[in-house]
């Protein structure tokens, strides 16, 4: 049982990390607590659902839905935040604007599509489970694990190894100085929104596939855990989000499996409080984007 519980924990952790990747990027670079992030997640999943129902295979639906969610993110970021950025409004205003915006978006989506939980067609990904001794893993779960690893690696390579990454990091460090150095910060901000939206969209598809539950509010349900992960991992810290997500997943599953399932929810937030008390800048104590 321990082996299966560990696998359960790692898979749940990968889900948390996958969700948190784009969130932490957006937070770290744009310095905006953008609550519309959960909406990109829902949008990605719903887009993929629509395409799958039109008969698109998963290898087509997944990237297209991710790109679609990225475009949604760029547009929403532009509509909601451009003005606030120009007048350099305090962080709280962008928080409130995105909160209002995302609630309106969720309601609009719900009244359009209905609140029902939908499933991707069951045969989209082979439903077979792989057995390794006592442990069972499904194809969708392996897909999540693989995608999370791949996306983290790609994101780190982009940030560390390209001029674009350098520009984004410069902007995260000091937006004014970056602009003076000739970086088009508006374009870089749009790009970061786009990448975050794509990550959220891909996460929505994969997580919807794994849990078989796609509905307009699915992003909202993930937001609280997402917050815990990016705060524990350090705002804007990509590797931190990965590690914190995995740790959170394993700890939650172990708590439910061996202590009490009633504490599963509480443990995440206890960790959050404990980390904020002892290491306010996150467990790893540094934000890669800003200090790398």
């Amino acid at each position, binding site marked *: 049982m321990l082996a299966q519980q560990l696998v*359960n924990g790692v898979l749940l952790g990968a889900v948390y990390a996958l969700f948190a990747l784009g969130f932490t990027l957006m937070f770290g670079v744009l310095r905006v607590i953008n609550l519309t992030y959960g909406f990109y997640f829902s949008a990605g999943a719903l887009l993929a659902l629509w395409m799958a129902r039109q008969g698109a295979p998963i290898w087509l639906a997944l990237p297209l839905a991710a790109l679609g969610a990225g475009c949604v993110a760029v547009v929403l970021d532009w509509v909601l935040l451009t003005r606030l950025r120009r007048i350099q409004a305090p962080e709280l205003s962008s928080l409130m604007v995105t909160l209002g915006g995302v609630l309106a978006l969720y309601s609009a989506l719900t009244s359009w599509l209905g609140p029902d939980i939908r*499933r991707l067609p069951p045969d989209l990904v082979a439903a077979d489970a792989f057995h390794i001794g006592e442990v*069972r893993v499904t194809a969708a779960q392996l897909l999540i694990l693989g995608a999370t690893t791949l996306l983290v690696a790609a994101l780190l390579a982009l940030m560390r190894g390209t001029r674009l990454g350098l520009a984004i990091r410069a902007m995260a460090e000091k937006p004014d100085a970056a602009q003076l150095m000739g970086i088009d910060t508006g374009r870089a901000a749009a790009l970061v929104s786009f990448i975050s939206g794509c990550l959220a969209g891909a996460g929505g598809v994969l997580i919807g596939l794994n*849990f*078989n*539950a796609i509905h307009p509010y699915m992003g909202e349900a993930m937001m609280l855990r997402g917050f815990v992960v990016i705060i524990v991992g350090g705002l804007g810290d990509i590797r931190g989000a990965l590690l914190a997500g995995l740790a959170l997943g394993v700890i939650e599953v172990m708590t*439910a*499996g061996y202590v009490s*399932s009633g504490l599963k*929810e509480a443990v995440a937030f206890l960790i959050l409080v404990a980390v904020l008390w002892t290491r306010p800048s996150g467990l790893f104590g540094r934000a890669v984007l800003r200090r790398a």
Partner: protein
Amino acid sequence: MLRRSLLAVAVAATLAMAPPALAQGGAPIPVGAIEILSGPNAAYGTAIRAGLELALEEVNAQGVLGRKIALTVEDSAANKDQAINAARKLIGRDKVVAIIGPTLSNEMFAVGPVANERKIPIIGTSTTAAGITEIGPYVFRTSLPESDVIPVTLARAKARGVKTVALMYANDDAFSKSGFDTMKAAAEKAGLTILAIESFGSKDTDFSAQLTKIRALKPDAVSISALVEPVSGVLLQARQLGFGKETLFVGGNGSNSPKLGEIAGTAADGLLVGSPWFVGKDDPANQAFVTRFRAKNGRDPDQFAAQAYDCMHILADAITRAGAAEPAKIRDALLETKYSGVMGPFTFTQGRDPASTEGVVVLAMQGGKFGVAPQ
């Protein structure tokens, strides 16, 4: 100020001169409903509203005390505060003579005391938790409490050779928790051995830790008390983790929705659930209801729509017998209800709960659809 009173006079004059807008004359009788129409649980509220509206058409075609019933449906969004505000608005501004709803037992525990204090009868159509009608003398329900349904279901499971059971429930929702308490009591009473008790949050999507633990204990049955969305999630994940036909899944009232098949598909096959109503019941009243509901809404009614449908008729019947659209008289008339609807014969106990359980049907999932369970 002056302008407003002038306007009021003008409106009043126009109304007075206009021919009676309603066929039978008289101002419509205001009735309120509070249901979940938005958010993740809106499926329940929209089903209930559809049931109420269908019954309302029939009621208004005949008229009540020579008048019509005007139904105002407020959205609670599954939020207790919003539900209380809706009740205050319905009572204070719309002057309703009775309230139907709210959708969840959780919300009834918040709204019931408000209506009771203002002496407005409030009738839950889907509130099955224990203790609902103990809120006060104005609180009724037409839904069979879970404590009447679950023992019937567990008795059927026992008859199929179940001796050990694991219980799962959502611990953040009064309906699910109360269903669990009932389940636990019924399982103990039926002499089943409870191997494990596991909880989860009703918005959770991951149940792997709890299910892995239960699988290691190899119970004959897993009994789940939660709303249909988390129940579907539990079943889907249980199949991923290798639960097969050797484990019988048993659901509480929340599982009793066609949504279970839509979301969980064949993963839900074999699940047993007790129901106060079934779409396939072949008495003429039920068949007429199902046909009319399909024609109007383009889909099958569920239990929640059926319960709401009967409730609207029961309320209209009580208003007629009360002889006046006055809350206190309606309350007294409700207690004397003798109605036969799609759920079967209906009377209230002195405790304002439904009196009869003879309508309970045990259903089983097969191929993603409910059917009457084979013995």
